[in-house]
Structure formats: C-alpha cells, structure tokens
C-alpha cells in the first residue's frame, strides 16, 4: 500500500511540476511580448472604423480577389534575386458581394502613391518605400513573394481589409484568355493605328495580341495617359465577362483555360477554389466599376497619382465595410 501511494505521489508531483513549468513559460512569453519588448508595443489592430459616430466593420459577406497584370512577357519565372522588373501595371480588386449577388470592381491606378513593404535578401521585410503602387510587385523574385507584397500593400491601403485570393498574370496570359473565350468585343474610341493597325475604330472583336495592345499600350494612343488606359481596361473587363459567361456552362472549359494559361500566371487559387468561385459567382452581374478619384501629377521623372482621401474613404466604406447594428 505504501509503495503504491509513493508511486502515486511521485506521479502527482511530476505532473504538477510540468504544469507549473508550462505556466511559468507561457507567463514569460506573455510578459516578453507586453513588457520586455524594447520597441513600442504594437497596438492591436482593430478593423472597426468610426465615421460621424457610426461604427463600421469589414464585411464578412464578400469574397475579394486581387487581379494583377504584370508588365512581363513569356512564362512566369523567378528573377533569382530579391528584386525583379515586373511592375504590377493593372491592379483590380474583384469584390463578390454575396448579399446583392454582384461583382464590384475596385480598379487602383498603378501610379497611386503609397507606402509599400520593401523585401530584402531572404525575403524578409526591410522597411518601407513610398512610391507608385506598381513597384510593390518589383520587390521579391517575381513569384508568390512579390504577389504577397502587392497584396499586403493594397490591403494596408484599404484600411487593412483581408484580400482572400490573388491572381497575377503576365501579358501573354491576356492573349490566351482572350482567345479562349472566342475573342472580346469592345468599342474602340481612340486611334490605335500607330500601335496596332489591325485595331480599327468602333465595334471590334479583339483577337490575340490585339487584346494585349488594347489593355497595355498608352504610348501613341489618345491622350497617352494612364487614366484613359484604365477606362479601356474596364471596358475590356466588361467585354471579357460577357464572352466568358457564354462559355462557362461547358464543364471542361475552365479546366482547359486554366491549363493553357497556367505558365503565365501566379496565383494562390487552387483548381478547386477556382471551380468553386465560378459555380458560386459565375452568374453575378458586374456592379460598380470604380477607380478612386485623385490627382495625377508629374513627379521628378514619372507620373504620380494621389488619391483623394475623402473620396477613397467613402469608397472603401461603401464597398468593403458595413455599419454595425
């Protein structure tokens, strides 16, 4: 009887010792993060925003997908460095609104001036840089790390909202997707003759490289401004969506398009996610297609776009937040 008690006592003592050690260690970790950390304690980021006495919180009934158009040709490849030359020329946030069953599009100007994380050697953050949004993708190897950097940059710009997925595509993907849907109908209102003489004026069905020229080029087209190019990109999205809807009923269509475009894209969407989104959101109408207003100024060498803060704030609250209660 005594021996059994002793064994029980030892087991009890050992268990108590382990639990006390666990308590001590977790207590130390908590103290370390709240008191001993030499820098200023980070504030817990609350995503509730208050405007005119009304609290807003991030909407939970939307799914957001960041679509980036990278100014590179050919299949995606790593720069094998901590920087790359692939600027994110097009940045569209697709907002699938599950309540109203529409897809709103927030199109950010690639020259939008903002703070972005800088990635150093090894992919770690090495401070920030204030510059054009398009540069956020040039940090990193040009693959997932660069896409994440752009996602984080835009997320921070939009008050820290969660961007659920991203898709980054090189220029050649545009031609592939364009032809996969049988061509895209647009109304051409500017003269493209100096860029691509095959693109006429008026109603045109874009094929292959015509699509690339239409969405990418601004030199020698119209007023040569990025703002006009943004409008063309939005017109193209409208046309593409219409053509896509006509084909999406074919079960094999999505798979075949994905396989064809895969070498030219970087995405965190698996085929399962893509199929799920197509079946869930495929019939959504295009809702608002908006670009934050602001001022386009010529910097020392390049254009700089400064978004109007009040207008941007209203836009973010309308598309991405909902009032409490």
């Amino acid at each position, binding site marked *: 009887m005594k021996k059994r008690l002793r064994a029980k006592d030892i087991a*009890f003592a050992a*268990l*108590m010792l382990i*639990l*006390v050690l*666990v*308590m001590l260690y*977790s*207590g130390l*970790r*908590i103290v*370390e*993060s*709240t008191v001993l*950390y030499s*820098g200023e*304690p*980070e*504030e*817990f*980021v609350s995503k509730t925003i208050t405007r005119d006495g009304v609290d807003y919180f991030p909407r939970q009934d939307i799914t957001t997908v960041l679509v980036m158009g990278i*100014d590179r040709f050919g299949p995606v490849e790593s*720069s094998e*460095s*901590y*920087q*790359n*030359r692939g*600027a994110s*020329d097009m940045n569209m946030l697709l907002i699938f609104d599950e309540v109203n069953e529409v897809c709103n599009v927030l199109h950010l100007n*690639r*020259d939008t001036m903002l703070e972005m994380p*800088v990635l*150093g*050697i*090894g992919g*770690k*953050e*090495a*401070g*920030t*840089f*204030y*510059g*054009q949004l*398009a*540069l956020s993708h*040039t940090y990193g190897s040009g693959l997932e790390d660069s896409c994440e950097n752009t996602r984080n940059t835009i997320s921070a710009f939009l008050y820290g909202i969660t961007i659920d997925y991203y898709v980054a595509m090189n220029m050649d993907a545009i031609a592939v997707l364009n032809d996969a849907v049988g061509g895209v109908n647009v109304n051409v209102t500017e003269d493209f003759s100096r860029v691509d003489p095959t693109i006429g004026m008026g109603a045109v069905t874009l094929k292959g490289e015509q699509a690339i020229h239409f969405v990418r080029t*601004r*030199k*020698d087209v119209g007023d*040569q401004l*990025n703002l006009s190019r943004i409008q063309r990109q939005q017109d193209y999205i409208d046309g593409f969506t219409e053509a896509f809807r006509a084909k999406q009923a074919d079960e094999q269509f999505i798979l075949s398009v994905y396989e064809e475009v895969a070498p030219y894209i970087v995405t965190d969407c698996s085929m399962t996610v893509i199929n799920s989104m197509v079946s869930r959101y495929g019939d959504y109408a295009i809702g608002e297609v908006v670009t934050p207003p602001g001022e386009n100024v*010529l910097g020392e*060498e*390049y*254009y700089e776009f400064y978004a109007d803060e009040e207008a941007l704030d209203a836009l973010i609250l309308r598309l991405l937040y909902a009032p409490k209660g």
Partner: protein
Amino acid sequence: MRKTICLLCAVIMCLSLASPAFAAANTFVPSITYKDAPTIEDSEMNDQNTSGCLVVTSIETARKNAANATEAEKELLDVYAQLDNGTMKLPLSGDYVIRELVSVTFDQLGCIDPSHGHEEWLEEEGNCITVSFNLGVDKHTHVTVLVYKDGQWTAAEDVTNNGDGTITCTLEDIGTIAFCVEDISDAPQTGDAGFLLWVVILVMAAAAVVVLLVLRRKENKK
C-alpha cells in the same frame, strides 16, 4: 511682293497651328517600371565633388552583363549568392535584413579629371569618401552600411539618416556594399495569435493545477 508676304504669312500660320499637334505627340511621359539601384545624391572626396565619378550597379545589371562582367560585378554576384544561401553572414549582432546589395565603383569617364587617380587615393590609409545614397528609407530607420573588401566586411562610419530618404556615410573603401536595417518581422505583438495562444495555455495549465489539487485534497480526506 504682296503675294510673297501673304504666302509667308500663310506658311507661318500653318506651322503655328501644327505646333500643338507636334507638342501633343511629344507629351508622352513614361511610367516608372522598376526601382533601380540606389542613386548617389552627393559625394565628396578630398574636398572634391565626386558624384559623377561613382557608379552604382545592381545585381540585375550585373547579371545582364554576365558575359562581360567586370571583377566588381562578379564579386557582387558571388557575395549575393553566398548571402542568399546562408554560407556568408554579416558581422552584425541581432537580427537584420539586407535591404540593398550593390556594387559601387569609380567610373573614370564620369570624372572631371580622369587622371586624378581616385581609386589609388582612396586606398591610401586615412583617406575616405563621403557618399549620400538615396535608399528611400523612412526617416526613423537606422541603416548600417557594410563594405566588402579583401574577403572582409567593414562597417562604414558616421551613417546618418537625412530624413528625406537618403543616408550619408563615410567610406574608407568602395566595392560591394550592403545596406542593412533591423529585422522586426519576428517581433512579438500583443495582438497576434501567438500571444493569445500563450494566454490560453497559461489559463488551461492553471485550471489543470487547480483541478488536480482539489482532487488530491478529496482523496486525502478519504
């Protein structure tokens, strides 16, 4: 005579009408496409302005010139490879991140007096060059500048963050240069999931202790 004058006026009017069209065709402003290696805002050596004497080469540029790479470019690529795969460490205490790794060399063609012998002068003991680099850093960021020479890293002196994105430092040598900042990526934050996890563990362990003590006490009473 009158006809000549009228013709001249007509020609001048036509040309002046056409000039806005010419101006429009030349108003294309390119978009920024990438952020190149840090530029040099100012440089002084031996009381001479040497800004035009220095060339900053990025890894991307060195790779492009691979077939005809200079010794400096080869060294830059070699050092980058070693830093990237972890076989080389910088002599810095604490956690740091290399924000930029470039090669800085003298460009004789850019100097006012190519025969001045800048490289030889700098190599003499006690001589140094003051350089301001545009890194685009935040005014609160502390930057450490290290120069790689003869297989060793040496920290630059008098590194100053000028508050406008540029830093100024005094270099005894030039070559492969690393601009380092503090790594704050692993800094514990009160709001993150790790903190909450430890709170949960602490609470559960404390609860387990209480339960065990209560059970033990009941058992002893029996």
